[in-house]
């Protein structure tokens, strides 16, 4: 039997917490689902409960306060729970220690967040090469340094903030490589920064920390190769041109044991796609994002999307979008006091302010097209199935010109991550080879289970009356 709920929220980061709170305060019965042990997502990442930290960050304190309100509002929370599939009639298939097998919701809010954009270059699969997000988790959740001599490469102020946190925690930060060339570009956007004082203060204080510790900040530089036998021992860096293509002859090699990559984020939109939400290709918002109306509703009635999972915009924008989605979803299920349109209009100044900031951020920190040309023929694009750029090009030479044809030939995207890591890399490679656009090349078609779950879990689902459709879908 499926549990029933009025509003299901998938993801307990800023958008999901804000949505759950708004919907519950309006009177809706809300279930909040997250794949991690603790709520907060990456933005509000909390220190592990077993660890006592005397000086939590501002984000951690804000996340804690928001979580308190969500609990007080009577939201049911399902931790360590993945949504591995969705089926007709807003039915979510769940797997988790406290979760029912199925959850039938009148309205679903997808607040699935984002993950660091993978960038393929020779040596990027070596242990010691990790995303900036991985380093953040170690720092914030566990107070552990990812390594001793750390090189950061990426784009945007988050990298500078991370570098400063690493330095303050005692790491030797070798350098911070920024792919863009910022100074002239940023002058055009000064007006947007008016009012963004907390962001400016945080950015400046991080920049000062780096200066004080003499950490080199190098705009217009990227990674050419990571070296090492069983783990990273050094990295060759290279100057980049305006389009982020390496400039031959500019290389330098730096010793390091850790490489943290922060080239922006990719929205987690697999569930939205699986539910049939129409998507738009928006490089300025991280990639493919669901189309939405002013209520954050997708073209699938009753399915809403908010926060980074619906297009990269950062925590503050996610909070506003989540609140709108929560109010709208509650209204759809017959809750809410008075005029919903007026409630939502009340939030429009905040929404507009954060969207302006997002546009500025995207204009400054969207990587150039050359980012996808850092790989060589023998560089792995699909980490799970160990498919190289050469394998992908050979499939194209055989006549494949879409990502799903290349997948069928090479197995790229068929591994555990379900193509989340290699999707953009493979699509860009095919587009380059065929002269087609990334939109024409397409994206991996998601199929349930969209996350690996034990066979025993599927067996349990299949034995369930309400899941005949699900069992059928898995057999297909």
């Amino acid at each position, binding site marked *: 039997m499926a549990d029933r709920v009025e509003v299901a929220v998938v993801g307990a980061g800023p958008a999901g917490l804000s949505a759950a709170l708004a919907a519950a305060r309006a009177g809706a019965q809300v279930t909040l689902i997250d794949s991690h042990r603790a709520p907060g997502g990456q933005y509000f990442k909390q220190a592990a409960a077993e*660890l006592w930290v*005397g000086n939590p960050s501002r984000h951690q304190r804000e996340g804690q306060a928001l979580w308190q309100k969500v609990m007080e509002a009577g939201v049911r929370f399902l931790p360590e729970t993945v949504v591995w599939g969705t089926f007709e009639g807003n039915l979510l298939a769940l797997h988790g220690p406290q979760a029912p097998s199925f959850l039938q919701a009148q309205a679903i809010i997808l607040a699935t967040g984002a993950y660091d954009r993978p960038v393929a270059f020779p040596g990027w699969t070596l242990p010691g090469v990790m995303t900036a*997000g991985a380093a953040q988790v170690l720092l914030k959740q566990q*107070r552990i340094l*990812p390594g001793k001599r750390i090189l950061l490469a990426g784009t945007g102020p988050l990298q500078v903030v991370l570098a400063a946190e690493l330095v303050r925690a005692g790491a030797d930060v070798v350098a911070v490589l920024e792919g863009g060339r910022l100074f002239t570009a940023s002058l055009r956007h000064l007006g947007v920064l008016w009012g963004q004082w907390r962001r400016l203060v945080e950015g400046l204080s991080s920049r000062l920390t780096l200066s004080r510790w003499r950490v080199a900040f190098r705009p217009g530089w990227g990674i050419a190769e990571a070296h090492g036998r069983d783990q990273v021992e050094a990295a060759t860096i290279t100057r980049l041109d305006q389009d982020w293509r390496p400039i031959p002859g500019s290389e330098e090699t730096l010793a390091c044991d850790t490489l943290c990559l922060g080239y922006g984020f990719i929205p987690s939109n697999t569930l939205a796609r699986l539910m049939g939400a129409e998507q738009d290709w928006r490089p300025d918002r991280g990639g493919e994002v669901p189309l939405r109306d002013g209520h954050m509703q997708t073209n699938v009635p009753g399915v809403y999307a908010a926060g980074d999972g619906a297009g990269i915009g950062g925590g503050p924008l996610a909070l506003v979008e989540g609140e709108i989605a929560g109010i709208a979803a509650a209204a759809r299920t017959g809750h809410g006091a008075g005029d919903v349109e007026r409630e939502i209009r009340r939030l429009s100044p905040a929404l507009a302010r954060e969207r302006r900031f997002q546009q500025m951020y995207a204009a400054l920190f969207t990587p150039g097209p050359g980012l996808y040309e850092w790989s060589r023929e023998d560089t792995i694009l699909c980490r799970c199935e160990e498919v190289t750029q050469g394998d992908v090009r050979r499939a194209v030479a055989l006549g494949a010109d879409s990502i799903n044809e290349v997948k069928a030939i090479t197995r790229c995207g068929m*591994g555990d991550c379900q193509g989340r890591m290699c999707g953009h890399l493979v699509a860009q490679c095919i587009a380059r080879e065929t002269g087609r656009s990334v939109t024409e090349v397409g994206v991996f078609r998601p199929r349930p289970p969209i996350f690996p779950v034990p066979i025993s879990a599927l067996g349990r689902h299949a034995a369930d009356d309400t899941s005949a459709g699900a069992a059928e879908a898995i057999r297909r």
Partner: protein
Amino acid sequence: MTRIGTSPEVERGQPITITVDGEPLQAYAGETIAGALLAAGRKAWRRTLHGRPRGMFCGIGVCFDCLVTVNDTPHVRACLTPVAAGMVIDTGGKP
């Protein structure tokens, strides 16, 4: 080696001993398996089908690169799974 800070800012959880590839490893409650391995200076653990070393990459449960076997259960993400006393971990990539 790379655990940050001591009192007054940070108090770690209970000390815990886990077994990794047959050797005891000191960890603290609240750490993930990946965190404990990295804090011990071990960056590489799993081996791919082609024998290439892998460790933690995305850190948030998306990439599935950090998989280990825990108490005979295969396919466990080291980056998400907290350590527990007596846990026996097989990384599949004994150094």
